[in-house]
């Protein structure tokens, strides 16, 4: 199971450090542009839609639905399910689905964020609700 896995610690950089600091407190952050109103993920300092630099951090609900997934049947660390989640706030993001029966995943299924520890900041994953 994925619980036994060890994950690489995020390297982080000045642009994304606030995301990882918030993750240590259990908060899942996205960025929103105050010029065009669009939210995006992963976080950038310049809005990828309107190129405004007026982007601000916002705590996401951490809730969303499975857009798609694929169950990798074999790997050096065992089976795992990669996929995309579309957050309630709009942006879709790449993740792994954890703490569940990987063979029962469905497109459209409701999921929520769950953090897993690393040697540094914790990493966000998603699990069915």
């Amino acid at each position, binding site marked *: 199971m994925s619980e036994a896995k060890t994950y690489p610690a995020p390297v982080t950089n000045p642009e994304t450090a606030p995301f990882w600091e918030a993750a240590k407190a259990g908060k899942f952050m996205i960025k929103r542009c105050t010029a065009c109103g669009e939210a995006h993920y992963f976080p950038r300092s310049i809005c990828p839609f309107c190129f405004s630099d007026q982007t601000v951090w916002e705590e996401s609900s951490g809730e969303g639905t499975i857009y798609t997934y*694929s169950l990798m049947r074999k790997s050096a660390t065992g089976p795992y399910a990669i996929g995309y989640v579309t957050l309630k706030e709009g942006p879709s*993001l*790449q993740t792994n689905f954890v703490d569940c029966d990987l063979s029962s995943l469905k497109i459209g299924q409701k999921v929520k964020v769950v953090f897993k520890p690393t040697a540094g900041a914790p990493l966000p994953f998603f699990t069915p609700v």
Partner: protein
Amino acid sequence: MTIKGKAYIAGIYEHPTRHAPDKSTAQLHAEVAKGAIEDAGLSNADVDGYFCAGDAPGGLWPMVDYLGLKVRHMDSTETGGCSYLIHLGHAAEAIAAGKCSIALITLAGKPRTGAMPPRAAGAEADFEAAYGATTHNAYGMCAMRHMHDYGTTSEQLAWIKVAASHHAQYNPHAMLKDVVTVEDVLNSPMISDPLHRMDCCVVSDGGGALIVTTEEIAKSLKKPLVRLIGHGEAMKGPRGGKDLDLTYSAGVWSGPRAFEEAGVTPKDIKYASIYDSFTITVLMQLEDLGFCRKGEGGKFVADGNLISGVGKLPFNTDGGGLCSNHPVNRGGMTKILEAVRQLRGEAHPKVQVPNCDLAIAHGTGGLLGVRHAASTCILERV
């Protein structure tokens, strides 16, 4: 300004090897360069432009030195498997602008002999690398959503492999020469849902090269005249996660640009080289290029429609990446090579398309389910 008809492919070479533990990667580049230069009837001293991508050891300038070239135009555009399709378009631009007159493009490598070096991380690394996106599951995610949105089936995807295997039986160099059935594909082990082992291409060593030149020089040489009349390139990624749609590729942009420049439509195409890293890659690209409507790729590829002499759109008559080879895990070069063979009338007689005077070579690079580039080349026999 257009590149239409400005550049001719005068030399081609595909390395016959599929496993080369006894050769260096630079050596393979040199061998395919030599093959293409000799196919054109030229010498290495004639080459004044050079194009290579991330598979060239050390990159552009070590390769130019190793090959002993003296060039006045260089380009190391790196877009994964479609790099060489983009190189062909860029070579035509350079030739049209007078920046070079005889361009060499090479691809070679040995992923079957040993692991490939990891690609450099982008700004997304901390937010994606831990999730283990590989080719298999990134394309699996596309197939899963395509099936969800359009009802595409594993049986329909299997027909793509079946067609490739029908062609590969005539290619003496193909890694997989056995003709397979839809049932064979469905009964092969599941690798990453919903893709089976036979939905995946082979891993092979090898390489290929092209010589691209002016009309004047091409007409002074002995090979049948094949020229580039349309080219397009594009890039697609999650782009901040807005309106994610993994059921189409950047081919929806590169394809129309190429067709518009060429002044032809998908209906005019006699032969199609379509990158086939996985069966789903072919299906999505056929839709994106306009050979059928979005969502109807499953019906289009079924029942042998891609088999030469049987269906309406003969594709990958060398057996493609699914059966013949996939040097350096990059499909763009071999797509051009087989398209040129078809236009020259040099394909195997069992798969040669009669009077083949218009062909498309199209591919993607990167991961279709994450971020990727696409490039489309329309080629014409004069």
